[in-house]
């Protein structure tokens, strides 16, 4: 018998009612990691923006060589994958394991799409002879997006582990908690990209 750790939704697929006491979703350890990552990325974003002040024209010229379609599509993919993770958690809270797994596969596919587009983008840059040493802008571009890229891979690994747990052990409270923990990490990856996209790809 499974005992729900979290409040049950009022109907299948609905958001659960607000908890009576404040509750942090997911494991405390992942939240500490999230704070550290957000701090690191925040400093990195500000370093990019203030480094730009030293040579705005050079930054703008390099930035104009980025393909906005790659960045825009990847933003849509990450946002959609995040929504799929939310739907997967809702399904599991309604004890709908198959539906939860289907949403998880959809989320993972979104992540895989992001990775494929990013590799395509990097490959195009490397083919054009552009790398970390090309300019200050491109040093930041590769470091910022590369660091984020590895977080996407880590998020996909967490989601895969949560999915395997669901297949093996069903919708137990431990599995729901595991997916919520993977989920908040995934949403952080999404949140970081939401700031990174306009900063690196759009702002001139």
């Amino acid at each position: 018998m499974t005992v729900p750790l979290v409040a049950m939704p009022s109907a299948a697929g609905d958001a659960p009612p607000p908890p009576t006491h404040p509750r942090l979703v997911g494991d405390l350890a992942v939240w500490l990691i999230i704070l550290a990552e957000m701090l690191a990325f925040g400093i990195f974003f500000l370093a990019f923006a203030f480094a730009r002040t030293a040579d705005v024209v050079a930054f703008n010229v390099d930035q104009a060589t980025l393909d906005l379609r790659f960045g825009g599509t990847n933003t849509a993919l990450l946002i959609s994958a995040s929504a799929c993770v939310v739907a997967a958690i809702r399904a599991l809270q309604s004890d709908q394991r198959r539906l939860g797994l289907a949403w998880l596969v959809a989320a993972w596919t979104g992540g895989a799409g992001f990775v494929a587009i990013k590799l395509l983008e990097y490959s195009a840059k490397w083919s054009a002879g552009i790398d970390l040493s090309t300019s200050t802008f491109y040093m930041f571009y590769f470091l910022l997006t590369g660091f984020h890229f590895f977080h996407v891979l880590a998020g996909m690994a967490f989601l895969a582990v949560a999915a395997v747990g669901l297949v093996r052990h069903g919708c137990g409270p431990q599995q729901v908690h595991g997916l919520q923990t993977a989920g908040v990490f995934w949403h952080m990856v999404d949140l970081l990209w939401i700031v990174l996209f306009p900063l690196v790809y759009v702002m001139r």
Partner: protein
Amino acid sequence: MKRTVLIWLALLLATAATYALGQLGALTGTLGPVVLMFGLAVFKGWWVVLDFMELRHAPAFWRRVVLAWLFGVPAGLVLAYAVA
């Protein structure tokens, strides 16, 4: 679920607006578009933080810390663009 779909659509719409402004090249020179662009990012982040990460019903400390990041970092970025 309906709420999640609505938030997802709003996030996609905000992304499309960001993309369109970038494509139009409407962001060069003045500070107004910069504020608009990072405002859109904060709008998107707000829903991700409060609804997707479920911090709306979390202990206030965690909600405040993450929201402080969400408002603080874009504010710093706007400042950097203002002094550039």
